């Protein structure tokens, strides 16, 4: 079995916007039949300590850029602007 891919979803406080983003990613991937993905929410300030084993970081607020993990900075799950594009980017980033 494939090891599940891990996405870290970050925002400022880990209570509001990352909840919407995590749910949005989960639903978008499910619609496309992608299920083996683990999503964890965190504060932007926690990203550095949680990045081990993570395949992709999706964030609504700036995060460090030296983490050696792809980072997608986006408001698309909140505003709807460019959402399809971002979902494609996420799927692309999760491919080996």
């Amino acid at each position, binding site marked *: 079995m494939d090891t599940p891919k891990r996405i870290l979803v970050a925002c400022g406080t880990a*209570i509001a916007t990352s909840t919407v983003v995590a749910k949005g990613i989960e639903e978008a991937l499910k619609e496309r039949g992608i299920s083996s993905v683990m999503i964890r929410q965190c504060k932007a300030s926690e990203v550095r300590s949680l990045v081990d084993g993570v395949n992709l970081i999706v964030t609504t607020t*700036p995060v460090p850029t030296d983490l050696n993990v792809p980072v997608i*900075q986006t408001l698309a799950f909140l505003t709807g602007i460019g959402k399809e594009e971002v979902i494609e980017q996420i799927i692309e980033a999760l491919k080996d």
Partner: protein
Amino acid sequence: MSSVIAELLQPSCVLLQRTYDNPEDIIRAIGNELYKAGFVKESFAQAAIEREKNLPTGLPLAGGINAAIPHTEIEHVIKPALGLVTLSNEVNFQNMVCPQEAVPVRMVFILALEQPKAQIEMLQEIASVLQNPELVEKLLQANTFAEVITELKK
């Protein structure tokens, strides 16, 4: 449609067609109303103001009328609530994802969340309001609390 939002909004915490100079004044005004109504602690407004400075919440929207969603740590909240401010003038917030960029805002949802990762329906409804330029426009035109609720429930 937006029934959770409609339920969480209280008349005293919906300030329509107001004029403010800056995000601080907006957050303080609505924070005081949420405090008086018993939803948040007295510390909420100041905490949300500080949070907005460090981690801004301005969101450029598709219809050109932009919004902000100030909020803060759960420790300042007593029970979940929502405040809404619509503005006659544009007030500059900073962009959430790109804080050096100013976003002229006319609609502000203040979120009082008491549990991490909870109130998902409320948050998703807010996102769907933000993604609906027609509804945003209608909310900006609303003069009364009743009109706001009517538009949200359509």
